[in-house]
């Protein structure tokens, strides 16, 4: 298990170095950083001096190494647009996106898994067919349409829930959370549902497909032959064997959700990283874009690694090679 962890971590580090190279190249060569930072009246001498001070005359490798060293310490430089430390800007916005994605993920699992089991167990029933049809609608509706429809229904028409913003937040250390105030929670509902719609149908369809497969296996039949009640066979014995791909999907999709939160954040004016990134793009605020790229990639890679480790934890067969140690005697 330890060797496995070390190997996975080394892989992850390698991928991050490659991403850093990409981010660095964009940062360094898309437009001249000096031109972006100085004002109109700066002299040629001023510019040369700034160039020297920023280390832009150093060799590529030296600059890349510096970029990586700084990035590891969370230093992505200063935003061109508002002259603030990039990491402080992102740190302000990250909790909003994280909470949105977290709640959307939880919703997708809590709703998607049972729906998947039900549609598999009662396949061909009217309920299952209706749910299947609903899931097709769910995957084909663009998330901004879902968002706008939710706003129309629950904010504009019914007036139950806020249509934009994050509500009141409370600071827990540097983390500003909306989960602890009623208005923060209310503000989270519509964006989270909107972000999770696609995900719910994805989870549901995956669980359904896996369950149909698993329900045909010998160990499911044998569990029934042992007298295990049907519901327990389905929800415990079979479902557990379906969770592996769900873990993978969820892990991979959290990365996607963070990326797609961009759309939801725009629709709901949710003050998260996505909104920050959209603004950065508008102003060609390269340091913010580079930092966003690095951070989102880091989350992707970290999740991938976590998924692999979780695999080994759920499935004893992947855990180690005790199979060889214990299985020899007939």
């Amino acid at each position: 298990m330890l060797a496995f962890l070390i190997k996975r971590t080394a892989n992850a580090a390698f991928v991050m170095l490659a991403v850093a190279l990409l981010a660095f190249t964009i940062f360094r060569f898309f437009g001249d950083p000096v031109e972006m930072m100085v004002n109109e009246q700066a002299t040629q001498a001023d510019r040369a001096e700034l160039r020297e001070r920023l280390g832009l005359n150093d060799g590529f490798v030296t600059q890349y190494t510096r970029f990586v060293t700084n990035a590891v310490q969370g230093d992505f430089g200063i935003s061109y647009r508002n002259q603030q430390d990039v990491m402080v800007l992102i740190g302000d916005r990250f909790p909003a996106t994280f909470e949105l994605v977290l709640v959307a993920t939880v919703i997708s699992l809590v709703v998607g898994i049972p729906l998947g089991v039900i549609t598999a167990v009662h396949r061909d029933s009217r309920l299952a067919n209706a749910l299947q049809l609903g899931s097709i609608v769910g995957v084909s509706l663009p998330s901004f349409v879902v968002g706008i429809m939710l706003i129309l229904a629950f904010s504009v028409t019914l007036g139950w829930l806020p249509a934009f913003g994050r509500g009141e937040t409370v600071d827990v250390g540097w983390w500003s959370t909306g989960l602890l105030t009623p208005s923060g929670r209310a503000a989270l509902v519509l964006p989270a549902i909107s972000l999770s719609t696609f995900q719910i149908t994805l989870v549901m369809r995956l669980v359904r497909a896996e369950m149909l497969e698993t329900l045909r296996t010998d160990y499911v039949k044998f569990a029934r032959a042992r007298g295990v009640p049907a519901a327990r066979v389905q929800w415990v014995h079979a479902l557990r064997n379906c969770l592996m791909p769900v873990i993978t999907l969820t892990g991979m999709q959290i990365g996607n959700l963070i990326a797609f939160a961009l759309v939801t954040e725009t629709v709901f004016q949710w003050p998260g990283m996505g909104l920050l990134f959209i603004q950065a793009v508008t102003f060609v605020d390269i340091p913010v874009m580079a930092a966003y790229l690095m951070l989102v990639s880091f989350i992707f890679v970290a999740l991938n690694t976590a998924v692999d480790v979780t695999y080994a934890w759920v499935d004893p067969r992947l855990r180690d090679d005790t199979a060889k140690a214990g299985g020899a005697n007939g």
Partner: protein
Amino acid sequence: MTETVLDVRNLRVEFPTRRGTLTAVDDISLTIAKGEILGVVGESGAGKSMTGMAILGLLEPPGRIASGEIWLSGDRIDNLSETQMQAVRGRRIGAIFQDPLTSLNPLFRVGDQLVETIRLHTQLSKSAARQRAIELMREVGIPAVEERIDNYPHQFSGGMRQRIVIALALCAEPELIIADEPTTALDVSIQAQITALLKRLCRERGTAVMLVTHDMGVIAETADRVAVMYAGRLAELGAVEDVVRRPQHPYTTGLMGSIPSLRRDEAELQMIPGAMPRLGAIPEGCAFNPRCAFAGPKCRRDTPRIHGNGAACWLALEGATA
């Protein structure tokens, strides 16, 4: 008169399909007494597993019992509700399936699967059930049980896993065990051990056993009586000595001729030219008639049937096939 544990009467299992109804089990009647081992033989596709699954109430829809009755120690069980049947499966009827590699849930420790089954059918506490699981594992011959009980199925060999499956079937001391080709998937070198173990455990307990196999050798060594199945029907039923020494059905004779040769059915049935008909294409009259050297006009017209010892063959029943 010994106690009858299983009494199957005129069982018929059907599969409605788009191209008509297929009859996988056609008018089968058989009984198994307390402590008796009934061997069921036949080529693959003969309907052996369907018979077992029908008794367990585990036919996969659209498969269904179309007619007939199944009685277990005086209780009719073919018309029970699913909930009632859950209290029969595992408690009064134990099951052993063909492939031990796939019978156990890979994500649960073997001990937990045993404890789950024991607690489903008894009032034992968790720790008492675990104690019972340890005893059972010891009884089926798992070495170092205390260390192995918390292992996962993949940590055991095929033979060891089938021993655990046997322990699972015995958890609630059932009256009847249905063993569907319990050794077919195993290495030849351990098949005999597993069969012997099953026989010993059931004899000690007086458990009735329906032992499905296509190995005539296993039947000869293990069973008290034998039922020969062909194309969903009973071809011959009788005491092992009689059927093995003096088979009356030409199909059984063909099967017997092959005991000393290879033990797999593909090889066995080279003795008889032709192949068993598919379900949709069973000929009129005796299902065996296209392959039978003695077939006469009556064989192609009327279906010979037995509901007790004997051979479903006009030659045996009436002494003529005309």
